[in-house]
């Protein structure tokens, strides 16, 4: 037993930048556990870590790129996806992962998200949704539930949030799942599955932000939010994405919602190259 634990630690360590620890995240934050699931998923997947590129935008979640021992890019706010698009098309043999926050991917980066999904870019997106902008101090964003408090919705949020899986599925993603960090095993497997699957794979991960969103919404400890997840989440693999929108009261539908096949953008690019080459040889 002890030796197994040791082996596991060692493999995980080799994928982390230990020289950068301690990390910046608050106690009880959901980002760390999500990174743990990602690291184990890389192990599970059997993929060569040298060929994995991880891209983050800006935010607390955006800092993930700085802690993984992979080729990793900490880019600008909202722009992880187009940067990742260049990586993928520049070298289609890479396994490209985007790990970023809800504000980064759905607000400022929302346009890139729907277009990357539409093209079916071959990459895996891990979107850590903590229902607010953590890095800038807890403001509302496009995933903040109706009526929730934040530092820019002191009277309660009046905006209706995105149903993220529905948005991404409608845009063309070929793999869509949602888990909370409480569902560590499922999340880990889901990430591994998504990384192996060609095409645009999107995983929404709900994780606590006790310091800001939690404190303002009666979940001042990370464990409070974990209890909320435990109470409210229902696993419904294959659920219709249109039915999985989130409200402050729950339920939180989790599971794998979409797993379909469609040519990736790179496969389409190869068609173009073939056609152009045929013209050359005419």
């Amino acid at each position: 037993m002890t030796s197994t634990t040791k082996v596991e630690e060692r493999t995980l360590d080799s994928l982390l930048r230990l020289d950068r620890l301690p990390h910046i995240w608050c106690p009880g934050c959901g980002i760390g556990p999500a990174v743990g699931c990602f690291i184990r998923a890389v192990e599970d997947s059997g993929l060569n870590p040298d060929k994995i590129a991880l891209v983050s935008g800006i935010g607390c979640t955006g800092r993930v790129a700085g802690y993984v021992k992979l080729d990793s890019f900490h880019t600008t706010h909202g722009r992880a996806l187009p940067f990742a698009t260049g990586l993928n098309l520049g070298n289609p043999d890479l396994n490209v992962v985007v790990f970023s926050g809800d504000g980064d991917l759905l607000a400022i980066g929302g346009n890139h998200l729907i277009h990357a999904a539409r093209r079916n870019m071959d990459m895996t997106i891990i979107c850590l949704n903590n229902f607010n902008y953590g890095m800038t101090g807890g403001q509302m964003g496009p995933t903040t539930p109706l009526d929730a408090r934040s530092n820019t919705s002191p009277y309660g949020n009046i905006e209706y949030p995105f149903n993220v899986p529905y948005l991404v599925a409608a845009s063309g993603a070929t793999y869509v799942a949602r888990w909370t960090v409480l569902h560590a095993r499922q999340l880990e497997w889901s990430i591994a599955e998504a990384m192996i699957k060609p095409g645009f794979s999107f995983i929404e991960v709900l994780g606590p932000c006790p310091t800001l969103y939690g404190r303002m919404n009666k979940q001042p400890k990370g464990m409070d939010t974990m209890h909320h997840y435990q109470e409210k989440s229902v696993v419904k693999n294959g659920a219709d994405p249109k039915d999985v929108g989130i409200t402050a009261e729950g339920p939180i539908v989790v599971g794998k919602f979409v797993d379909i096949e469609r040519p990736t953008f790179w496969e389409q690019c190869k068609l173009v190259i073939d056609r152009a080459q045929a013209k050359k040889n005419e």
Partner: protein
Amino acid sequence: MSENGVLCGTFFMNGDVACAEGAISAGCRFFAGYPITPATEVAERMSERLPYVGGVYVQMEDEIASMNAVLGASWTGRKAMTATSGPGFSLMMENLGLGVMLETPCVLANVQRAGPSTGLPTLVGQGDMMQARWGSHGSYEIIALVPSSPQEMFDLTITAFNLSERYRVPVLMMSDEAVGHMSEKVVIPQIAPEELVNRRRPHGGQEQYLPYKPDEDLIPPMAIVGEGYRFHVTGLTHDERGYPAMTAEAQDQLVRRLADKIRLNKKDIIRYEEVEVEDAEVIVCAYGISARIARLAVRQARAEGMRAGLLQLITVWPFAEDRIRELAQQVKAFVVPEINYGQIVLEVERCAAGKANTLLVAHMGGSVHDPQTILQAIKEAVR
């Protein structure tokens, strides 16, 4: 055409097409862009030609995405570019800064139209010259070239790629609508591999590699993604390991080096052409399409017995300040025609201060200068 699909020969083509062909000859194999007049023809040509030479064209959802895709592609080792005009150029600014900070070689062509805002979409302007220098936030240095003919669109695009690979910095091609849309003879030679510069790769083992440890010339060798270096890069201020370093000392070290790698190599980077400056008492300092018009005015001035000369800037950034300071000792005045309300004239004025006068010949855009207005300014200046 040569066997590998790269053009070779003499052609009649417009400036935008020549820019695309220059890129292909330079080894560019990735283009990401968003259509905008008058730069669209660069994208169209690339969409046809890149797959032909085994490259990738992708039309992104906007210019912000285009700039980022170019940066990503560059980190895979490809030479990459985008092309745009004023409105798109503005959108690219934040991530041009990311390119500077990550020291990512790439080329951005701006075929300028008259602004501000949507302005005159189909007509010439040179109003983005200062934006090229200062458009992104923070302190940095950039390289910007200004072509004045389709032939220079071809030649300078190759120069742009070479400089960007050499100095690990985005290089701007500050063209304009007149040059982009005019068709002229363009000679496309076969470019020998040794004429092309490729970024310096890491020397030494993967374990020792520090992504931002510069060599003596202040330029760090560049690893590419997927080779096992497992490097980290960030837009945050960083140390030699590429790790965030949130101190004034780290900021000082990094920002100084990013600027100095350009400043200390000015002599290698700066390019200009001179016409009859030896005995000149008035020098017209111009760039791009305005330099071609200025040439006519200078010739006419000479024919009328005035000692006029032309200094055509080919790089505007870094600015040819040493040469202008030198010439300021000899001339009465500089005449600066620009298709804007006075941008590069400010630089000329700064360098000539106290030694020679400076006269702006401003034209707001929509057409090029009438050579007579430049001639008039020369006459005023000799008086």
